[in-house]
């Protein structure tokens, strides 16, 4: 039975991976098309120096590979992606603006973004779960109502404004926390945490509110379930009923949501990275888009797409692990 199960799972995963490939094709193509359909000037001219002669422009155009027609360029891009280029595999090319290879920068920036997003996810779960659970245990209580209202305030707060407000307060005015920028964990763990704290909070507050709302709803549903009554009838302590039975069942559907949110943020922390000057993927894609640096834009788009596909696949697998009812049989 086990072997058969693994085989079914394997086929499912394979099918999803194939679909991921299709999505990657579509998204990179869309990015390419946007770049060429909505150009903000001739990129070759932009990168040909301050006073470009026509020869230099032509040369730059060749160097950047912009001399082919769009379809050929796209196919060449795919080919390099699969085969690799002079910078190794996968062939992500070089930045138009700096001439540096994309890949090493991509990994470096992905790390920062991952730290930002995962840290924020931990915080919003740490806030969202207890608040949501407590609100569900005391529905319509003062705590429940005020947590809903405060949550709505967080949801309504523009992230960039929250970031500036925190920076102004805790950095510029009170001097309690270090300001913008990033310090690697290995350099100085305390400084690292200090620099990440405000970005984490900024990114997580709205999510904490959303998750608290969702968890509250799920908990309310779950607490009405028969099996909770069973657990109580067995004489389990209330704490165990809430955590082990109700919360467990309520959190399972959250896993999918969490994975999708984290994945979306991997390419989508633009504003927080901008405000806090974190050199992650979000600020990079903004830079790439503003400076017509197509390889940067493509690389980040690619990573974001893969993250969304793989994480939602992972979420499905984890879901199947956590909820035996949806396991393929």
């Amino acid at each position, binding site marked *: 039975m086990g072997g058969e199960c693994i085989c079914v799972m394997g086929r499912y995963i394979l099918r999803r991976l194939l679909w991921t490939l299709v999505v990657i094709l579509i998204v990179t193509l869309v990015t390419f098309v946007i770049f060429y359909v909505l150009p903000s000037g001739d990129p070759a001219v932009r990168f040909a*120096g*301050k006073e470009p002669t026509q020869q230099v*422009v032509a040369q730059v155009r060749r160097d950047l590979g912009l001399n082919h027609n769009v379809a050929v360029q796209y196919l060449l891009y795919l080919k390099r992606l699969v085969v690799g280029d002079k910078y190794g595999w996968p062939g992500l090319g070089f930045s138009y603006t*700096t001439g540096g290879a994309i890949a090493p920068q991509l990994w470096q920036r992905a790390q920062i973004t991952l730290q930002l997003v995962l840290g924020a996810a931990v915080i919003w779960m740490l806030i969202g779960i207890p608040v949501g659970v407590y609100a569900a245990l005391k529905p319509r209580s003062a705590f429940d109502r005020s947590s809903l209202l405060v949550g709505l305030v967080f949801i309504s707060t523009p992230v960039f404004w929250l970031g500036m407000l925190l920076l102004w307060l805790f950095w510029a005015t009170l001097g309690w926390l270090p300001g913008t920028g990033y310090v690697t964990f290995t350099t100085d763990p305390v400084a690292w945490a200090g620099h990440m704290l405000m970005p984490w909070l900024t990114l997580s507050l709205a999510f904490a509110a959303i998750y608290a709302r969702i968890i509250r709803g799920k908990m309310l549903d779950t607490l009405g379930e028969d099996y909770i009554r069973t657990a109580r009838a067995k004489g389990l302590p209330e704490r165990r009923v809430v955590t082990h039975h109700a919360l467990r069942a309520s959190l399972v559907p959250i896993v999918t949501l969490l994975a999708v949110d984290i994945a979306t943020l991997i390419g989508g922390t633009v504003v927080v990275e901008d405000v806090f000057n974190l050199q992650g993927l979000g600020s990079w894609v903004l830079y790439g888009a503003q400076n017509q640096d197509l390889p940067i834009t493509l690389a980040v788009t690619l990573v974001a797409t893969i993250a969304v596909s793989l994480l939602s696949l992972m979420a499905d697998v984890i879901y199947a692990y956590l909820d035996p009812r949806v396991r393929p049989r």
Partner: protein
Amino acid sequence: MSVVTRPPRRARASVIGLAICLGAAAAVLAACGGSSGSAASGSGSRGGTYRVEATDFGFSNNFDPTGEYTTNAWGIYRGLLIRTLVGYKMIAGVPGNQLVPDLATALPTPTGNNTVWTFTIKTGVRFAPPVNRVITSQDVAYAFQRIATPALAAQYGFYYSTIAGIDAFASGKSKTISGITTPNTRTIVFHLSQPTPDFLYRLSLPAAGPIPREVAKCFTAPGGYGRDLVSSGPYMIQGSPTVNVSACGAITPMSGFDPSSKLVLVRNPNYNPATDSTAMRTALPNGFTFTINTNQRDIFDRIQAGLTDDSLNAPPASIVAQVAGNASQRHLIHSGLSDSTKYISMNLAQAPFDDIHVRKAVNLIMDKAGLQQANGGPLFGELATHIVPNTMYNDASSITGYDPYATPGSSGSVSAAQAEMHQSKYDPKHDGLCDASACKDVFTIAVNTSQDTNEIPVVQSALGRIGITLNIRALPPSSAGATVSTVANNVPLALSQGFSKDYADPSTFFTPLFESSSIAPTGNLNESLVGLTPALAHQLGVKIPAGVTIPSVDAKIAACDAIPTGSDRQSCWIALDKYVMESVVPWAPYLTQHDIHLLGSDVTAWDYDQSSNTTAYSHVAVAANKQG
């Protein structure tokens, strides 16, 4: 020359004194008299590391000198890494723009009507490791072969187009450049196809510095050599000695340079001070670090804390104001006056700016003091009243104080502007206002960086007083540049434009900016389209309004450019400068920016490199005992 996609920030003078005392920054006036300004005093001692941070290197060709076209790189090349045949003392002010021999033994006197230039190279000048050998005339000649190689995209190769045979080499018809000969290892002769009086200046640009063929031949794409640049100056990129240059395949990037994080320079063991002069390079620190710190605010916090010494970025006005207001910190502000002009560009082929009266009225109404304040006040720049910055004229006495559109307080004059507008065809009501529909919602490109954004309301408010309303698109610097420099976009008005010199001859302003031959469909620098002919207009998709003849200064530029360097040439340019301001009026110039540097407390000597418009790295010193 450089289009300001990056705001120009360089200048004359040395210490805070000069810069601030010219302006009205009352709060800091007290500082002027007593400012000790460690700078040009240059009494530092040997040792230490001079630490520079920047949000971005912004290199245009990945630090490969053949194509690199940024002032930041030029300052580093000239002071520390590359010795050209002729160079500068790398000091502030007019003297800093005067040529002196560097790799060559003397400044040559041209023969053959400025077409033959012969140099002798100093003995005992050697390349840094891993090349280690004596620099010969072939190494200089090779630099020109690289410039002429199309695949390397030399970004200012046009300066060398008058060298005989360079086109034949570029097209592959010839294996060598016939106009460059090397009779022996110490002699190099340039034969030019036409008289080029300012050729010496062109040889002072870093692309003309010696390059060892054995290394550079391995790099066939633009920018590649930047990772393995072999120094001829007092410093070299860290890790140079360990690079294996025995075969092209073996070459690895030098460890001291990572375009995305750092550039570390250490002493070049092969540097012989006897071949150099301390007037040019004191070379006191043991090394230089240029580190990317993307957090601009953090950079200046670190400078104030003494954790770093200097920045490639200009400090924000708010920080300068804060430091200048603090008596114990005031001495940390240093500045130079850059050889640049900031201006509003008007398109001579677009209504209503096809009418010179409108253009003059724009100059008369412009609140230049307001624009100065938007840029951070007098500390950040002097008012500009004409095209070429005064520091580029050896003797600026005849143009100092020249302001054809002077108004009280430089804030614009409604009466003078309306009187001028009165004469315009766009004022049919003769009420001194631009009444015609062409004056309403004039399409205007602006730049959305913080300081340039601040200029928008000032311009808008000023032009509103003569009846011109604007339809403004504020774009990021590079998009704004690309949009304005595409002729077919027909942008009538462009704000926050800037131009800075490549070398200290006014031709580097007039030729690209106002010659009709420099009008190009894209990447056009002659944004005002001075000298546009109907034929060319038709070709570029520009519609010149009926009955309008666009003035040309081509003949005047050619005349001045033919005069050998010296006072006659200077006078010619000054006359042309005035002519352009009064009879062409393509711009409303308003600012010559100060290049402000906030320095760390460890800096004991500092000067401004007028030739590059950067810190004079060859003259700085730091307190050696405080640093490793």
